[in-house]
């Protein structure tokens, strides 16, 4: 598999990068190095969690996504707003005003991803009944978490729920309905996800399991925030094709999916480093008795995504208000979701294709070479200061030792090793300077 060619939405803006070491220290897969004064992302390791986008104070990391201009390639366009979008636009704008604003900036229709979340909740309940093993099942809703499992925890791939994410569930429903209603070919309909994060943009362009993406493009919330705010506040409103229940909207906050499922023996984790710690526990078989895990890469959940604008905790509070505001119509949304799952079957909303282990962490494909390199790595590491300062451009001393044995760095890239080497050279110079020349030597008087 051509890992180097794997698509990533997270990209570096070279002119803004100062070559500091903030991003390399936060990357959960140690995918970034600073080389020649700029951050370099290793495509084989990157999971598009967007942690570096969030961390970079110079805004040198960006999310490459579609723009409103791309809508003109289709006869009919549908926006699929992530529930998190509604948490971003201030207290004055209700859900129907946001739908109107989306139509004003260019979309023909809107289908709420919160409705897709209701469908996925229903499918997940049925999946848990029909798949008693293995436990715990891990939610497939966050693509950064699924990629983290593919790269770092291949043993847990079988634990990932075989259910599509809410975005795909909404896309499938919206595309089929629009094609039937308007009598136009499915491929003339452009379905665009309005994304709170980089991972979902990548999932649209390079889907997790399947070859074919049911979503045609993804637009970052932060990219259209300004345009939407201009259209809001005019008191105009419109209805979406489908609107989710209060529980569907709650998915945008961490623990929301669990709230919607309403099951026992479940747990929720958010923030990619917390997810890493928890997956380690699952991988070691220490979570016996837990049936289901909701794991979201972003702190506070999707409302804290790297493509959002609002403070995540303000957004979280706003999300709770929105959930309350749509509560009245929720029973109807939930029964419609159930009806669709009955009609189409859970297979229609099942994860397409196989999830495979992704290589990226191995130090060499040949075992005997890998063993030799690992032995050397431990020897190099023992010589390094163990301060994990990052000044060499690698996130930790261990990562630096790995880079040294893989030929991607030199031991004296470490400032402490460099100082030692300079001291040795200086001592040698001093010794030489003190050496007597034969012509200047005085005879010793005995």
């Amino acid at each position: 598999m051509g890992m180097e060619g794997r698509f990533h939405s997270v990209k570096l803006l070279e002119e803004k990068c100062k070559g500091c070491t903030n991003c390399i220290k936060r990357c959960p897969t140690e995918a970034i190095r600073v080389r020649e004064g700029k951050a370099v992302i290793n495509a084989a390791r990157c999971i598009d969690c967007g942690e570096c986008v969030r961390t970079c104070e110079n805004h040198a990391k960006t999310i490459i996504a579609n723009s409103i201009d791309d809508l003109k390639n289709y006869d009919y366009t549908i926006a699929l707003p992530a529930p998190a979008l509604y948490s971003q636009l201030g207290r004055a704008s209700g859900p129907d005003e946001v739908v109107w604003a989306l139509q004003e900036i260019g979309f023909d229709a809107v289908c709420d991803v919160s409705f897709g979340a209701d469908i996925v909740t229903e499918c997940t309940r049925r999946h848990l009944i029909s798949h008693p093993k293995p436990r715990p099942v891990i939610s497939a809703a966050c693509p950064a978490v699924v990629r983290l499992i593919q790269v770092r925890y291949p043993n847990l791939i079988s634990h990932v729920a075989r259910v599509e994410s809410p975005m795909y569930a909404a896309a499938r429903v919206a595309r089929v309905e629009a094609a039937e209603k308007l009598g136009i070919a499915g491929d003339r309909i452009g379905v665009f996800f309005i994304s709170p994060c980089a991972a979902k943009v990548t999932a649209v362009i390079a889907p997790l399991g399947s070859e074919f993406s049911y979503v045609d493009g993804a637009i970052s919330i932060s990219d259209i925030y300004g345009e939407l705010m201009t259209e809001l506040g005019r008191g105009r409103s419109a209805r979406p094709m489908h609107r989710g229940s209060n529980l569907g909207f709650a998915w945008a906050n961490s623990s929301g999916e669990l709230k919607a499922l309403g099951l026992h023996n479940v747990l929720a984790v958010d923030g990619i480093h917390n997810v890493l710690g928890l997956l380690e526990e699952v991988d070691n078989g220490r979570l016996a008795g837990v049936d289901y895990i909701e794991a979201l890469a972003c702190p506070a959940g999707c409302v804290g995504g790297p493509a959002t604008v609002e403070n995540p905790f303000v957004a979280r509070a706003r999300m709770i208000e929105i959930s309350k505001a749509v509560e009245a119509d929720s029973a109807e949304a939930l029964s419609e979701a159930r009806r669709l799952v009955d009609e189409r079957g859970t297979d229609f909303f099942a994860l397409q294709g196989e999830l495979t282990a992704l290589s990226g962490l191995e130090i060499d494909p040949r075992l005997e070479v890998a063993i030799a390199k690992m032995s050397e790595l431990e020897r190099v590491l023992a010589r390094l200061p163990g301060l994990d300062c990052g000044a060499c451009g690698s996130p930790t001393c261990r990562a630096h030792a790995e880079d040294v044995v893989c030929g991607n760095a030199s031991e004296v890239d470490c400032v402490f090793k460099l100082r030692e080497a300079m001291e040795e050279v200086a001592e040698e110079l001093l010794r030489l300077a003190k050496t007597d020349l034969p012509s200047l030597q005085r005879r010793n008087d005995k």
Partner: protein
Amino acid sequence: MYRGGNDGQAIDRAGAAFSGAASPHSEPVLEMSFRVDRYDFAAAGEAASKIKQVLRQLGMAPELVRRAAVAAYEAEMNLVIHSEGGQILLRVDTEKVTLVACDGGPGMPDVSLAMREGYSTAPDEIREMGFGAGMGLPNMKRCSDSFSIESEVGRGTTVTAAIRIA
């Protein structure tokens, strides 16, 4: 995070355990050691996690990594709960992954009893923490292709588990 390297007696015995299995050719061999302290529950599991990471980086098959990680974890917990402290040694060559857990005491009076599923000498407070179910050694054996225990009361215990690389 590389701990250890200076626990004399236990290391010597582990070294002896290794030397018998040394490969005849000058094949590459990786050896690492990890110190494990008695009742250090805060650090418990770190050696197993580190071993898992190393095996993953070596490109070992996920299933083999899982078995080795379980064996290493059980060995580590045994040292934390039952021993006066000891070492875990990891040795990898192109044929197998070997784990050696050795401690300086107290040693087991009856090894066959210790191997019986459900048998444990763990005190109540350890059982309340969810450990001491008497599955540690049987679990380790189940994950290994070859498995042996040497123990002497007053001297210590050495558990050796090897997993073949298919």
